[in-house]
């Protein structure tokens, strides 16, 4: 779960990380009313998950109420421009009106989960305010890392050492360890996978403030944070995520690719392998679909209808290798789903093996379905059917 800037900054405040004064607004009128009451120089920023707001003209300045209303309208008039992951762009539903700060320096600081060391990693570079991938290309030596020993936890020496090591401007030094402490607190308290401040601004009057906030919360830890339910409800899902969610799947369990061979498998690894097999057999993949662990009739039916109604699939290759998933249950699920569905019918190619495969095959046979033996065979058959259909 990725948070928007205003949500991230709310968590920053709770964890003692200094942020500029700001107000979250839903309409241009709200923006105007806020600036009317609070004269000054303000920046109005689109609240979206997509990156590249500045380049897209979705960050603008305003020095009075009328100007605030105008720029807010301009920003909200069009969605964020599309990219590969968001082919329809992203609608702008709210804005953050924030105090402008006089920038002396911009740095970059993040905490993330490092797979290799199995530790939280604190990353700092003195080049902030630009795309971090760009910095990594141009100044790879500027990145300093500290892998935090989770037994010891975060202590100020970590931030101090990083500030010296990354050669942050001297103005950062005293405030930096406490800011990283706040980030680490946030990281653990809310189960974040990423806490990123870019830029971390040293202002002309000597304050250090987080001018942006990028936070990713671990979905697996969300059950400990019912307070995020409200935010979760307003976060934009892309089309595929919405469809997956409506079908009762995890939002990452389904993705479309435009081909004619639909796939459905148990486990992400096998689902990916199934797509590979279809590719290898010369077919075009309609979708990725991981049906998950317990594939009962309702789940199978939902998945079938998802593929039939929302992809260009002419055939569905169901590939099940039972481990925790039991073959007999999946078989029952398939039979019941095909009986009950009201959607149009497309041919199925079924491969069913592993736990309880004998019973599963029997159930399918009784319903007149003959499973194939191997994944490659199934892929080949599916591609032929898609081509012939």
């Amino acid at each position, binding site marked *: 779960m990725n948070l928007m800037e205003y949500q991230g900054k709310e968590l920053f405040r709770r964890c003692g990380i200094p942020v500029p004064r700001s107000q979250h607004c839903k309409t241009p009128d709200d923006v105007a009313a806020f600036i009317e009451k609070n004269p000054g120089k303000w920046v109005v920023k689109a609240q979206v998950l997509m990156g590249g707001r500045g380049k897209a003209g979705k960050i603008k300045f305003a020095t009075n109420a009328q100007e605030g209303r105008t720029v807010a309208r301009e920003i909200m008039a069009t969605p964020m421009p599309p990219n590969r992951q968001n082919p329809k762009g992203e609608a702008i539903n709210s804005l953050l009106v924030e105090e402008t700060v006089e920038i002396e320096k911009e740095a970059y600081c993040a905490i993330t989960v490092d797979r290799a060391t199995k530790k939280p990693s604190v990353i700092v570079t003195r080049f902030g305010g630009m795309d971090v991938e760009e910095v990594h290309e141009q100044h790879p030596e500027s990145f300093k890392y500290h892998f935090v020993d989770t037994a010891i936890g975060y202590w100020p020496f970590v931030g101090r050492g990083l500030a010296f090591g990354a050669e942050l401007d001297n103005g950062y030094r005293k405030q930096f360890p406490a800011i990283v402490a706040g980030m680490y607190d946030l990281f653990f308290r809310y189960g974040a996978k990423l806490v990123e401040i870019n830029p971390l601004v040293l202002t002309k009057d000597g304050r250090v403030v987080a001018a942006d906030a990028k936070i990713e919360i671990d979905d697996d830890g969300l059950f400990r944070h019912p307070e995020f339910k409200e935010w979760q409800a307003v976060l934009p899902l892309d089309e595929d995520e919405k469809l997956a969610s409506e079908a009762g799947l995890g939002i990452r369990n389904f993705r479309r690719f435009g081909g004619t061979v639909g796939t459905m498998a148990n486990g992400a*690894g096998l689902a990916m392998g199934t797509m590979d097999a279809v590719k290898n057999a010369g077919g075009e993949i309609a979708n990725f679909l991981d049906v998950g662990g317990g594939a009962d009739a309702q789940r199978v039916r939902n998945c079938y209808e998802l593929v039939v109604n929302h992809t260009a699939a002419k055939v569905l290759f169901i590939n099940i290798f039972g481990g925790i998933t039991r073959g007999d249950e999946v078989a029952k699920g398939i039979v019941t789903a095909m009986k009950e569905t009201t959607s149009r019918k497309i041919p199925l190619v079924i491969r069913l093996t*592993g736990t309880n495969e004998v019973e599963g095959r029997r159930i399918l046979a009784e319903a007149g379905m003959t499973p194939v033996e191997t994944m490659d065979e199934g892929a080949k058959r599916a591609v032929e059917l898609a081509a012939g259909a």
Partner: protein
Amino acid sequence: MSIYLDKNSKVFVQGITGSEGSYHTGRMLAYGTKIVGGVTPGKGGQKTTHGLPVFNTVKECIEATGATHQCIFVPPAGAGDALLEAYEAGVRFSVCITEGVPVHDMLKVAGTTPGMRIIGPNCPGLVSPGQSLVGIMPGHVFKEGNVGLISRSGTLTYEVVDGLTRAGLGQSTCVGIGGDPIIGTTFVDCLREFAKDPQTKALVLCGEIGGSDEEEAAAFIKQHLSHMPIVAFIGGRNAPPGKSLGHAGAIISGSFGTPQSKVSAFQAAGVPVADRPSQIPELLKERMAARV
């Protein structure tokens, strides 16, 4: 021999009276695994449907049964707790099947359990064919032999093993290490063990996109296992680009974990990479023949 697990390993199941725990305990027993008891808080003193004793705590369980290997089937919120309870009680080998364990629980566990070998979480477990199976793998696809297998995927592992067995290539130990961001045991951890195992004469590595475990494994092989026939496979080469995990993570790992970087790393280590699982047996046979 085999790694991690053999026919004498005494196993207990945490969450043994839950539906998954109970079901797979039965299957493990059927495979021949030496399961000696289980833990379900509040059900201490009872017997499972398989006739095994149930204890309230891990400490009681291992004191009464002498169990050394743990298998965890508790819900995600309790998996970290189960691992640490076992660690404090002195258990040093644990297989965590549970899917959806919060990554921060695993960060804490990984940082505070020195000396404990954890397989998983979100993994199918491991099998030393003909001896013992701990986890949820379908036992009938395995066959005793000389090929060691390490895999990040669950169901894809079965696919690969099935192919090996059909091709007459039995296995020494097959380890499903799991695909979560933080896992207890990596490719390299397993490679170290296989390097010491006399039974293991060849290896299969099933990687996935993302992370840099495969690259590290390739480097290890280049240095320590260049004598052994090894074949790799990378799942998900046509996988959807997921939502970005954040630039920071990618920068740190020094690798975006693309299929290409993994394939190149293996090739540089002299390890052929199969295009599909079904190619693995023949590639491995070729390598084995070349060495003899």
